[in-house]
């Protein structure tokens, strides 16, 4: 799981970094599963953050 202080921005940056590394094939097979697991965690974190933010926004502007 991402560390406590992870922000959406830093998570997204790391995620993009992992994708780039995979595209440029600089990830060794040994690191691969670790990287993919990290990516999945980051995606979950970001999605969660997005959902919460959306709820908050809707709460603030109230419909």
């Amino acid at each position, binding site marked *: 799981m991402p560390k406590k202080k992870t922000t*959406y921005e830093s998570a*997204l940056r790391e*995620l*993009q970094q992992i*994708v780039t590394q*995979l*595209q440029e*094939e600089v*990830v060794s*097979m040994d690191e*691969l599963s670790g990287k*993919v697991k990290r*990516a*999945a965690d980051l*995606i979950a974190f*970001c*999605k969660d953050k*997005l959902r919460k*933010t*959306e709820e908050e*926004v809707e709460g603030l*502007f109230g419909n």
Partner: protein
Amino acid sequence: METYTLFELNEHIRHVLALNLPEALWIRCEIAQMNEARGHFYIDLVQKGEGTDEIVAQAAAVLWSKTYRKLKQNLEEELDFLLQEGIEVQLHAKVEFHERYGLKLVIENFDPAYTLGKLALKRREIIRELKKLRLLEKNGEVPIPPVLQRIAVLTSAGAAGYQDYLKQLDANSFGYRFSNTLFPTVVQGLQVEREMLAQLREIAKDKARFDCVIIIRGGGAKLDLSAFDSLALCKAVANFPLPILTGIGHEVDETVLDMVAHSALKTPTAVADFIIHQNLQFESEITELGLYLKNLTEQVLKENEFTLQQIEQSVHLQSLQKIGQGRQMLDFIGQELPQLLKYIFKKEKMQLTNLEKNCNLLNPQTVLNRGFSLTLKNGRALTSPKQALEGDSICSILREGTLHSLVKKTKDA
């Protein structure tokens, strides 16, 4: 030698005068001094030298009360104006001589037109002088305060005009309060100039206490108003540091004082109206300004409210859009990842297969199978004849076994 008694002499003079001056005559002169007793007016008439104050002729005159009452019916207030010390008159008088009381001019009539003409001339000269000194507009240029509340009043305490003025001020329907300070002065006769000048000097000493000065009096005969046609008084008014309003009650004629004043109104009541109006105008401007301010504030508030609403909508939409973009990005990454992984695995597998193939090709058994052999000396493969000497024992590996041999001869390729 014939001698006379004094009485005989005087009687003779009386006869001579009566014979030679049987009718009343028109005489031009100035009233130098006057006393009234039991309705009769005892008057000293003089004539002064041209342009000097030197008396060149003098005579006693009387206006009997009976004549006075008769004249009063025709001349009304004008008569009282004419009967003032210092006034130049043209009068119709009979020359009488009494043995005991001497010479006396018995006045039968006045010609007010003469006095009026004299005054009109004097008035024209004053106006010309004021014009020359550029004083006609001067007080008019003194700025009038937007609010007139502390007023110095020049008039006589008993003047009906003063009461009219106070009543009119008091009756204003706007609730304005005024502080009137009376500087009493006569408003007709030759003392007007002296008293008003003195009071103006008093007001000037305390000018910070007043917003303006008013000079008022009720209606009066035309001749009465001539007291305000005074050069010294007009100069003082023109040069006065406060604006001076006049209401010298006369509907038709303008006094010279009116001409030099800041604003000339017809009557004391009109002066009160002017003052009220000036204050009303100020209040209206203030009220209007307040309204304008209120509208402006409301407008600014409305505009800001609208802007805020727009910003709110924009923030709402943009934040949702941003979230949407984030979601798209994550979805994209979520789809991209398995594809990438698939590709990576496929590539790795291909690489492994190639390696395997290469390994097979390179396997020595494959070569041996094709009829090649491998020569070893002391367990090491030989690639050159130089690596062996004659007599060395070498071993050759074939597809189906090993040959042990001795080197007979070496030869480079």
